[in-house]
């Protein structure tokens, strides 16, 4: 690396006739995904600090010769020196519709280069992981339920960017993206999908039941996670720790009665709960117009203030979640957010996803509003990163996901001795009845 930089700077010296300083900043920017805590052994570990975004932005390290290097010939050479990139830019984002609020989140969002790359990395990782799960499912290595999240990555990335690791999050069954953003390693997620002992839940939970510190799954019963989320918010309020709970549900669950029961109590007791409806236009095979008398999901909280947010723009989601979190933390009570988003896959792997919508519609969303492309185009057009950088990130992520898949397919299945474990916590071992009276199995806590 040092040699290369010396050679390059020499060459540039000759070209430009000036002294060129090239600083190697590669150690400041990690091109691999954030490391995750080992979760399989322990419960309730304190979450790891967020990666990258709090590091010193590249702005401080840009030399004053920025403009000198802005020549066509030099662009390829300086791909590893970040000196010519815009460190930070402000973007106009779509205004949010509001309900019972005087003002909504700001219409401008600031994005630093590091943040942009981080969000890109997260979204691309979730995308690739979901596509890999699709592949494994078709190879019958994953079985049962598999609800994929591709198309909705901006929601997971944006929400995580706006909350702290000490805040809480609970969602429904389309949970792989959130499992990743809440700190679980890709290989543990894929190993859980393939039902191996290296999975997050040791292969006992599957696609819909993955847990992490301050992440409560992964819930299979539609709508049941919403009162749970309100309860987690009650615990935050009870303990007085200034944390919020983000409770996600879909447009299909938005009509569940228990949601309105939870809304009532959350508003009554001013629980710090952000209720987020991820409206991807279809509840399984039923479009929103056919399922809901009112499709203004952000207004369905009635007495609870609401926001309607463009869920394909990660900055929009981040600003709105930040606004919502501030609202809750200031003691004003719960808030409802509707993220308008889209899923490319069908409801689950057993649903091709084209019987209730047209391929043209899917294609249109992919070409016009893909969240990853949106972010990438923004950063490129504002000279915040180079195309090659993105390519390198893509390659690194592909490799990582491939390795994780390799692990997930080669890891052994959980041993039969574990069959009856984890029925009760902190209990002496008990005998569990097997399939016939002579099969006495043991359960250890």
């Amino acid at each position, binding site marked *: 690396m040092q040699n290369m930089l010396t050679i390059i700077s020499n060459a540039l010296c000759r070209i430009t006739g000036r002294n060129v300083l090239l600083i190697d900043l590669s150690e400041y920017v990690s091109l691999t995904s954030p490391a995750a805590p080992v979760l399989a052994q322990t419960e309730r570990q304190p979450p790891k600090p967020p990666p990258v975004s709090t590091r010193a932005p590249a702005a401080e390290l840009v030399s004053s010769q920025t403009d000198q290097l802005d020549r066509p010939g030099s662009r390829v050479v300086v791909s590893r020196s970040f000196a010519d990139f815009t460190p930070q830019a402000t973007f106009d984002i779509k205004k949010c519709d509001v309900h019972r609020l005087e003002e909504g989140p700001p219409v401008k969002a600031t994005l630093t280069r590091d943040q942009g790359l981080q969000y890109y990395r997260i979204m691309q990782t979730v995308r690739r992981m979901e596509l890999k799960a699709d592949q494994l499912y078709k190879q019958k290595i994953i079985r049962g339920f598999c609800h994929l999240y591709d198309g909705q990555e901006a929601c997971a990335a944006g929400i995580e960017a706006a909350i702290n690791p000490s805040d809480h999050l609970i969602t429904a069954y389309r949970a792989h993206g959130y499992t990743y953003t809440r700190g679980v390693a890709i290989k543990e997620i894929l190993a859980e999908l393939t039902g191996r002992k290296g999975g997050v839940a040791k292969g*006992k939970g599957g696609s819909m039941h993955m847990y992490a510190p301050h992440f409560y799954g992964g819930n299979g019963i539609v709508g049941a996670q919403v009162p749970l989320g309100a309860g987690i918010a009650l615990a*935050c309020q009870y303990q007085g720790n200034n944390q919020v709970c983000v409770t996600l549900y879909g447009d299909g669950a938005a009509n569940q009665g228990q949601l309105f029961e939870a809304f009532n109590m959350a508003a009554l*007791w001013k629980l710090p709960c952000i209720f987020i409806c991820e409206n991807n236009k279809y509840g399984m095979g039923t479009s929103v117009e056919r399922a809901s008398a009112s499709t203004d999901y952000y207004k369905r909280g009635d007495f609870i203030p609401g926001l309607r947010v463009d869920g394909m723009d990660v900055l929009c989601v981040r600003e709105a979640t930040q606004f919502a979190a501030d609202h809750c933390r200031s003691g004003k009570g719960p808030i409802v957010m509707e993220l308008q988003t889209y899923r490319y896959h069908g409801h689950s792997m057993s649903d091709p996803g084209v019987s209730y919508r047209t391929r043209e519609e899917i294609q249109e969303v992919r070409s016009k509003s893909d969240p990853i492309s949106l972010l990438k185009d923004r950063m490129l057009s504002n000279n915040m990163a180079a195309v090659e950088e993105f390519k390198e990130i893509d390659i690194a992520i592909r490799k990582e996901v491939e390795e994780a898949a390799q692990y997930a397919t080669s890891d052994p299945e959980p041993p039969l001795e574990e069959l009856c474990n984890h029925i009760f916590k902190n209990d002496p071992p008990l005998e*569990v009845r097997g399939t016939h009276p002579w099969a006495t199995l043991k359960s250890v806590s």
Partner: protein
Amino acid sequence: MYCSSWQFWSSLHKGSSGRCPWLLFPFFTLWLFAPPPSQLSRCDWLCVMTRSDRVVNCSCDWLKSLDLSRVTAFSPAEDRFNMAASLRCFLRTGKNAVSALQRREFHRSLPAAVQVTVRDALNQAMDEELERDERVFLLGEEVAQYDGAYKVSRGLWKKYGDKRIIDTPITEMGFTGIAVGAAMAGLRPICEFMTFNFSMQAIDQVINSAAKTYYMSAGLQSVPIVFRGPNGASAGVAAQHSQCFAAWYGHCPGLKVVSPWNAEDAKGLLKSAIRDDNPVVFLENELMYGVPFEMSEESQSKDFTIPIGKAKVERQGTHVTMVTHSRYVSHCLDAAAVLAKEGIECEVINLRTIRPLDVDCIETSVMKTNHLVTVEGGWPQFGVGAEICARVMEGPAFNYLDAPATRVTGVDIPMPYAKILEDNSLPQIKDIIFSVKKTLNV
């Protein structure tokens, strides 16, 4: 009956709180035509006064403690006294009913053994656990300012305030989910159902969100919660308010299901349930709330707990094993007393815990007595008795049985309202005696 009614009115007038008796006259004219007292049980007068909606019933505090030698006919004088006392009770609904017995206050040192009602024992247990651990809190309908629909949480809101004792709207699914979520996030809730019939609305949260989570997460996420409330038949509350859920909850792995009988059971098991890190379904019985029992000195201590999963032999015997839980322990003990006069010694086992079932205790007893009769209030099909019989068949005790096991259960119908129908829908002492004799072939 007419002359006794005069005596009845005078005793009523003496005991009344100053209200004009003639205003009550229309209500009680019916009583002049009531059936002879000797055929009615103690709780019958109570049934006449109570309504079937969710209003607090007058406590049975005026009942004397169980006297096993007097099972059948009452004296007319005692009946008149009881009628008058229950009327006084009714007039004073909402305040503490007249009690002929000592009532324990909080934090007072006491003589060795004392009479405590099941209600008070539950109250003490919750009070002590709320004090011991800050994370414990109670939520449910009417638990705070109303002092509890059945007054079980009386005084707790005054002592601990809004943060720890929370009144909820009538939204079982919602508040049960909230309780489970709070347990997941580190608190230790006690979720009260006004009766377990209403828990059916929230049963998804109890089973899918609470019971299964520790297993699904392979130990990452525990749910330390207690679901408690009255279970089973009450008096005159008809079909939708009388179901026994012991079998339904006892079916599910991941749950512990507890069914106390007396005050000691209630206190010790509730304390254990609250201290347990797992979801516990705590099935109380409304008709037992007002019944006083003797509590030993040991059970009055703040650290008195009864282990979950262990049954208790309430009465030693040699001829037949009676396995039962909750209110029917009383019935079995009464039946055992009657049978003892005929030379049949019954061993009565109080299950205390439905899940995990203490099969060892049952098997040891059956291997001693060679006969088994199970008694419960729930429906027979797929019930607690059915499970006990199946387990005994599968274990070593089967070889010791001299006769097939018998189940005494509630009748396989929705609970009717009319008194005579209701009485005949549930096991009576005569049914237990009959079943024991049939099992023993005498």
